[in-house]
């Protein structure tokens, strides 16, 4: 049923995903964990996004993340237990030297920017480049996530979305816009992450 949630989610554009439902059913054995790293500028809302999803809470005055932290979230995909290991990293430049040791072995990279801050969108390219240094680009699923959608008017947002879609296309990332305050799209987004990483790890196992 998680699969369904992901399929019905509205992606802003479609990456090359072929549903391999049958294969998944036959090919999956055992318990799986996917490592997801969440990166992006200072104060774009990485911790809030993770907390909205994992704890269903929102605190505007969340403490700045120091270094790196992580949360686990358990799912069931097509009846198979599956966990997302969500790595929350500090946004300050100098913490990269600590956090980047944990970029390695990620199944998905979530690059977050603030839809109200065009500079944070510009910086997503650099965040991606840094994260890809530690990973095999052909083996990792990318997501570009615009946060704080609630602070943006529809007109402002649609302007930003154009740019964001361009960046996403360049990166070959799937684009999502969310609000951790209202919760808009947050669950759907993480279900999508779970479904896609699940699928790819099953496919990898089948090979």
């Amino acid at each position, binding site marked *: 049923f998680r699969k369904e949630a992901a399929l019905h989610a509205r992606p802003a554009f479609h990456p090359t995903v072929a549903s391999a439902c049958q294969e998944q059913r036959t090919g999956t054995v055992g318990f799986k964990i996917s490592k997801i790293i969440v990166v992006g500028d200072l104060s774009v809302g990485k911790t809030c996004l993770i907390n909205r999803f994992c704890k269903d809470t929102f605190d505007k005055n969340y403490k700045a993340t120091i270094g790196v932290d*992580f949360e686990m979230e358990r799912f069931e995909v097509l009846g198979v237990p599956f966990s997302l290991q969500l790595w929350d990293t500090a946004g300050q430049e100098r913490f990269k030297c600590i956090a980047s040791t*944990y970029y390695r072995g990620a199944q998905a990279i979530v690059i977050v920017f603030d839809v109200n801050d065009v500079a944070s969108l510009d910086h997503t390219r650099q965040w991606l480049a840094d994260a890809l240094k530690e990973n095999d680009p052909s083996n990792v699923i990318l997501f570009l996530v615009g946060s704080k959608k609630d602070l943006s008017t529809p007109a402002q947002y649609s302007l930003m979305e154009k740019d964001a879609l361009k960046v996403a296309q360049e990166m070959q990332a799937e684009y999502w816009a969310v609000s951790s305050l209202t919760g808009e799209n947050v669950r759907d987004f993480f279900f999508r992450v779970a479904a896609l990483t699940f699928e790819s790890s099953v496919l990898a196992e089948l090979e």
Partner: protein
Amino acid sequence: FCRVDPYGFERPDDFDYASYEAFFSRYLVVLTRRAIKWSKLLKGNKSIQKSLKVKRYIRKGIPNEHRALIWMIASGAQTNMEQNPGYYHRLLEGEKNDKLVEAIKTDMNRTFPDNVKFRKTADPCLQHTLYNVLVAYGHHNKAVGYCQGMNFIAGYLILITKNEEESFWLLDALIGRILPDYYSPAMLGLKTDQEVLGELVKMKVPAVAELMERHGVMWTLVVSRWFICLFIDILPVETVLRIWDCLFYEGSKIIFRVALTLIKQHQAFILEATNFPDICDKFKQITKGTFVTECHSFMQKIFTDPGSLSIATINKLRESCREKLLSQG
């Protein structure tokens, strides 16, 4: 006990008032005894010389009313402040680096949201004081500028000294002298000390070191906040202050003592972990509970539990770990 502690921090919803009260009524006796001893020690002169007696006194805790003064004297901040009159204010009046100011501003609301004195609505609002101290420091020590974590440290200094300029000089004592190269852009000193801790655990609690290695947990993941925030938000406020008493007098070695004590004391508990997330979770849990709340007995343990820990050993390890890090690039 009320919802807000004496420093302005809101107690969490699940705060165990009953056991805290039990601890505090015992601790109050200690505090009273120490207050009498300290006022005798300081009688007539508002200064201290380094001596075994003073060291012992400090390890047993500096009474809150003398804390700011003793920190200032023991760390050398007092001397620096006296030798540079007006320097702090000149820094604030000087030209500002916009990027630095921006980075500091971003963290203002994110520094102690759980402390009533740091709320925007508080009067006086300590956010202004914090902002000034961090901006001044960033312009004083340009190589460091501003690194997250410094906001929490400066915040504590402000709560204790209630004085902007003294907080600035104490921050300088910590970042410029006591902690070797923790907050500069490459954070080499911090990375080094995390590795040093790993080596010390190998020597003193080998089973835990082996567990970490087996599951590929790098020390930085579980202890970076211990080092960067000097146990703020990791351990209870009173315990942090007791640690800092020794930190200002004895130096960064205290951080290793605290870390080793936490790990050694909870060795069996940590070893129950069977996977990576378990280990991380255990390291979060060992910083909670009565063992760390009972700050007086905790501070006694840090000087006995880890066994001998000479500065020579630490320096040797620092040197080899640094070399290793540098060669890895």
